[in-house]
């Protein structure tokens, strides 16, 4: 067995430590004082009843400053009569990389322009990756994403299984011709 | 049977058991451990006698036995490791290099 002594590789940008830093102990104390300072500060806030953390207390608290173009929620658009615009073509379900859309088609002979409709339209939000492909794929503009955040956390995974009615009821888009609903806090609705 | 006799007898029996292990077992490590057992029996007897005589000398002896045991193991175990690496066996029967 040949023993090759371990030689530590020296990188060109390796910072040189002076002996004070090499001594290690004081640098450790410095590091501890930094983390300890953060701890005491947050702890004090926490004790005095304020929020001792930067993170949002999701889902009870939702960040107000999501990006403007964030699209976190699907909706199904409706025809003027309130029925979904979806024709159950399954394109969205096909294109979905996460395979989280399930559609069961139904036949409605009364409705001659659109005899096929979605009897069941369900999205598994525990698997959705919010890629927006479904919106791209839809030929009927039946599915859209709106700038909201879904109340995702749930006690069990079935609560994250959103069905058609819910998708319609969230904030149903009644008029196809109209653009997206007004942005929050952006003046009067058009 | 008083306590003293019990413990001395226990020490003697442990010594005998250790010796028997040394004689009987094949595995070198086990034999080493049997030697430790013998030392333990001796220590027990020593402690009993020391307690009776209330003398520090015996206590010192006990302590020395401890040290000797530690030193012995510190050397014996590496030797066994070397032997095992050399012969690929722990069987004492294989170590007959010192045959006269």
């Amino acid at each position, binding site marked *: 067995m040949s023993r090759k002594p371990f030689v530590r590789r020296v990188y060109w940008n390796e910072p040189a430590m002076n*002996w004070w830093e090499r001594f290690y102990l004081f640098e450790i104390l410095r590091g501890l004082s930094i983390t300890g300072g953060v701890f005491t500060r947050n702890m004090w806030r926490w004790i005095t009843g304020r929020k001792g953390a930067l993170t949002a207390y999701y889902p009870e608290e939702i960040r107000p400053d999501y990006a403007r173009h964030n699209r976190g929620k699907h909706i199904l658009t409706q025809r003027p009569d309130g029925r979904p615009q979806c024709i159950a073509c399954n394109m969205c379900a096909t294109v979905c990389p996460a395979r989280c859309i399930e559609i069961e088609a139904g036949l409605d002979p009364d409705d001659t322009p659109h005899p096929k409709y979605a009897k069941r339209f369900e999205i598994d939000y525990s698997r959705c990756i919010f890629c927006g492909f479904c919106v791209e794929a839809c030929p009927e503009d039946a599915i859209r994403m709106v700038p909201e955040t879904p109340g995702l956390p749930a006690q069990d995974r079935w609560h994250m299984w959103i069905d058609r009615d819910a998708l319609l009821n969230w904030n149903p888009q009644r008029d196809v011709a109209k653009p997206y609903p007004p942005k929050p806090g952006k003046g009067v609705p058009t | 049977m008083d306590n003293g006799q019990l413990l001395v007898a226990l020490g003697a029996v442990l010594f005998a058991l250790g*010796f028997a292990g040394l*004689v009987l077992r094949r595995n070198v490590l086990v034999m080493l451990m049997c030697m430790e057992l013998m030392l333990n029996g001796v220590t027990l007897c020593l402690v009993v006698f020391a307690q009776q005589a209330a003398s520090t000398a015996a206590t010192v002896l006990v302590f020395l036995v401890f040290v000797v045991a530690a030193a012995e193991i510190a050397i014996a175990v590496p030797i066994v490791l070397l032997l095992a690496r050399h012969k690929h066996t722990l069987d*004492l029967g294989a*170590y007959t*290099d*010192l*045959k*006269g």
Partner: protein
Amino acid sequence: MSNLLTLIVVLPLAGFLLNGLAGNRLGKAFVSAVGCGLPALSFAAAVAAFRTLEATGEPIVDVVFRWALIGDSAFEVSFYLDRLSAVMTLIVTGVGSLIHVYSTGYMKDDASYARYFAYLNLFLFFMLSLVLGRSLLVLFVGWEGVGLASYLLIGFWFEDPAKAQAGKKAFITNRVGDAGFLLGMFLIYTAVGTLEMDRVNAAFMGPELPAVSASLVGILLFIGATGKSAQIPLHVWLPDAMAGPTPVSALIHAATMVTAGIYLVARLSGVYLHAPEASEVVAVIGILTAFFAATIAVVQTDIKKVLAYSTISQLGFMFLALGVGAYGVAVFHLYTHAFFKACLFLGAGSVIHALGGEQDIRRMGGLAKRIPVTFITFAVATAAIAGLPPLAGFFSKDEILWFAFASEAGGAPWLWALASLTALLTAFYMFRLLWLTFFGQPRMDAETAHHIHESPWSMTGILVVLAFLSTVGGFVSIPHFLEPMLPLPATDEHLHHFEVPLIVVAVLIGLAGLAAAAWLYGGDASRAARLGARFTGLHRLLSGKYYVDELYEAVLGRPLWWISDRIFLRLGDRALIDGTLHGLAGVARLGAAALARIQTGNLHLYVWLALIGIFALLWWSFGHV
């Protein structure tokens, strides 16, 4: 503060530990601060201790701990400060600190800077425990310790085998002396029952003398002193010891360590007062050493070797003083010698530094203008050692001469005569050195000459301080300061009218040396060369250092070699021991052949045999216990 003496001793030790353990990591500034600061603190503590001593008048004793308890006698590690050890302590710490500072300049570019200062501090520690130790045992530890430090420092550049060899030589030569020292110590212990030197002195000065020949003790201890202080016949190591860095030569092999022998004899003056034979031996050895070393120095060409032989010679002077009972005077000369010899060595170091490592005086010359500070200080120190008034050497040497002449405890005119001759030689070779180095035409090659530069202030400053001390140091009358404990011997009343003429003679001697050197070397070099040609035999004898090394080789080395080869190796080892062993082995082999059947190599069987043995033992114990 009660533990002042311990503090004095321990501070350099702390320096050694700090520099030795952490020095390489913490950089030169740290090393310099620790290496120079702690000895300086030690010096401050020594001054404080000295003030306390003068204030109380009582010797300070500082018991550190009990070392060993053997039978009824306890050996303590304790320190003892009276006027004698106070003088020594001040010299050691003071000169030591100065040389430390000097070293920061001299060793600036050495790779082993921290190691150097660690060793130097270690040396100070041992030297201080030598000087301050109350018991001979502590003194011996210091004695051996300074030997160790000296060994380490002589061989400091141990990559050079010659230098390592020199270190070894010093160490081994010292061992010879140490044997005598140890024997003397044993003798003292059996006779007096203690090794504490003040008690030993008291015992010998007391009403009933210990049942031991004081002379024998004295001679044995003196053998130790000859080893450490480089006296005939153990002087051979000191010239070689110049292999070490020059500040080391200045500190160890000129100012402090080699005077340990003087200190030992002076410290045990009680013994020597009752040992006229021993004193006589001391005086004769001293003057012989002084004379012969001086003659050798006349022809040496290495600047440091000249100084080394001069050191041996001066130590001989000190022993002469000790031998005629003038202990205080010996210490006085020790004290002045520490200043001017340190100055000379450091000056030599400065010269060597200026010349980029050149040590041969034949390739120097004309340096006076180029390195003026070094020159002036060197000249002052040279004048001091030559005994020109009013410099320090004049006073001490003059007193030695006077007591050699007139002391009732062994003074004799022939001692004086020889000492004066030596003094003449001293003056001569020192001025020769001065002339060859600083005057005349430059003889170095052009490249070296181009680079000559004055040393940094950390070196020249020290030189100036030491030159100043060698100028004024003589006005401190150490003999009178030490009179209470080291009384001067009575002098012959009839000779008192010689005192003033002798001084005049001494001054004249110094001037004569100066004149002779100026005459011989002042002009062209031809005069000296002609003189050398006329006395070729003598010159060769002197350059060969009387062939003492060769003599030892022939008288001791070869016979030992022969004895160990022929008798011990061939006869004793191979024939007797090996023969016996082989015979026994043959017998054993025969027996083993018979027993080999049991040796199966099977450990279990062996354990069985052991079991049978235990049974046999038990059986026996049933019958007998």
